[in-house]
């Protein structure tokens, strides 16, 4: 038994090392391809990796950049918080109430595959040209996976767990804390992870249309200014942020699923 545990821990470590090596190899490959493209196309249309990183560092240090970054972050965090609260509430409801779940699930799935950008003007008309429309649009993107994964997690709880709880005469609060929460956590976490990414996409999309502030606005502004370095630097920042957070969340996700 103990040797098996040790062996699996060792293979887990080996796997982790392998994953880190693959990730680094990928980053190096992307940088090489980028540099190659730069040498091939030239600096009219493309900035080199080094120049882009330098420009990004300059942006991060400048005072004019900070308000835009803050605006995007506030909209994103608020949108995500709303998506989590709404998604968990709706997901639990649809998971527990079987009929509602069966009626609504395909409709929620259908909303997932819609081009939701087209709904943004409606949100703009309803909320006005401010940060609230941005938040609402981020939430609209992020809430759907959270609903779907929570719904599935709640629906698939093994009945025996709940029955055991009833036999032990647990109070509703105890049931939630010691049965519901641990049993559904891994699946719900996956929903929260996907919701995180989609909220970010929604927030940026909203900023790219009819916005005066935020990273998305700066990106679109760069087209008019034909500032390739700025466009690439901001794109790089967004990509690095999204990829880094998503890698971290994926890692936690795997851990949680392994525990079961």
């Amino acid at each position, binding site marked *: 038994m103990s040797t098996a545990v040790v062996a699996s821990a060792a293979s887990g470590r080996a796997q982790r090392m*392998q*994953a880190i090596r*693959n*990730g680094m*190899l*990928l980053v190096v*490959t992307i940088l090489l391809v980028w540099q190659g493209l730069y040498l091939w*196309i030239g600096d009219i*249309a*493309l900035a080199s990796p080094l120049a882009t990183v330098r420009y990004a560092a300059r942006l991060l240090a400048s005072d004019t950049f900070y308000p835009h970054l803050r605006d995007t972050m506030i909209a994103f965090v608020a949108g995500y918080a709303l998506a989590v609260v709404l998604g968990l509430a709706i997901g639990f409801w649809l998971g527990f109430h079987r*009929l509602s779940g*069966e*009626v*609504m699930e*395909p*409709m929620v799935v*259908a909303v997932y*595959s*819609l*081009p*939701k*950008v*087209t*709904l*943004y*003007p*409606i949100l*703009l*008309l*309803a909320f006005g040209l401010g940060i609230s429309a941005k938040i609402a649009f981020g939430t609209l993107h992020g809430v759907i996976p959270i609903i779907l994964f929570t719904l599935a997690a709640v629906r698939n709880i093994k009945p025996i767990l709940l029955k055991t709880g009833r036999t032990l005469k647990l109070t509703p609060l105890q049931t939630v804390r010691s049965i519901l929460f641990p049993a559904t956590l891994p699946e719900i976490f996956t929903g929260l992870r996907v919701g*995180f*990414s989609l909220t*970010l*996409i929604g927030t*940026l*999309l909203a900023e*790219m*249309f*009819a916005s005066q502030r935020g990273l*998305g606005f700066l*990106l*679109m502004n*760069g*087209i008019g200014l*034909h500032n*390739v370095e700025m*466009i*690439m630097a*901001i*794109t790089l920042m*967004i*990509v690095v942020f*999204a*990829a880094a*957070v*998503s*890698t971290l969340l*994926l890692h936690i996700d795997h851990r949680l699923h392994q525990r079961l």
Partner: protein
Amino acid sequence: MTRLTIYRLLVVAAAIGTLEALCLAGAIDRITMQPPHEIARDFVRLLASGRMNGAIRKTLGNAAIAFGMALAAGVSFAALLHGMRALRATLDPLFATYYAVPVFAFYPFLIVVFGLGDVPQVLIGFMLAVVAVIVNTLNGLDRVPRVLVKTARVHRLGRLRMATAITLPFAAPYILTGVKLAVAYALIGVVGSEFIMSRGGLGYEISFAYTNFENATMYPLIVLILVISIALNAFLTAWEKRLLLRRGQR
């Protein structure tokens, strides 16, 4: 019609009815939205006038090109990649985090490189769609039973013949899952980028109508896009179900 379908229709009807009531009662003002029955009327008028035919053709055409490219490139790339373990292991983190990265953030860059023609929009649709095809094709190829591969080897099939006669047909239902996503993503990519900045297409017409306060054009167009994507999705889901049923799954 099953009971569940009836309930679903009831939910949609209730939602539209609520909107209608709110609009007629004045809780939603006309600058925000006209009542749904007027949207339906404008929808018929707009389509009958033929004013949007060019935009519809452009958007669906570009989405089809993006989807076609994603399908061809995705399936062949996945078939190649399936045999190369080291490369696949290197690309795995890319596939895992790909959809966490906002692909639309690349749109301004693509505009600067390719100009404001159709190319950046098609490319965004392609970039969104292709990885779904690759990942699902790989997933299908991973599930090919060894006995099929061995049989192919007994018959001395070459790599290409094996792919076209054995492994890809076996993976078809999984590829179809990728296709379903790719259709949705290609449409999202094209419409979304048209909406952000472009010179034509349904997304452009919606943003144009929005900036000019033409709700009588904007809402019918939004409905049109929703109808198109829901219809496409429903068709592909039904097809997928039939394929899986034939395999005796689900």
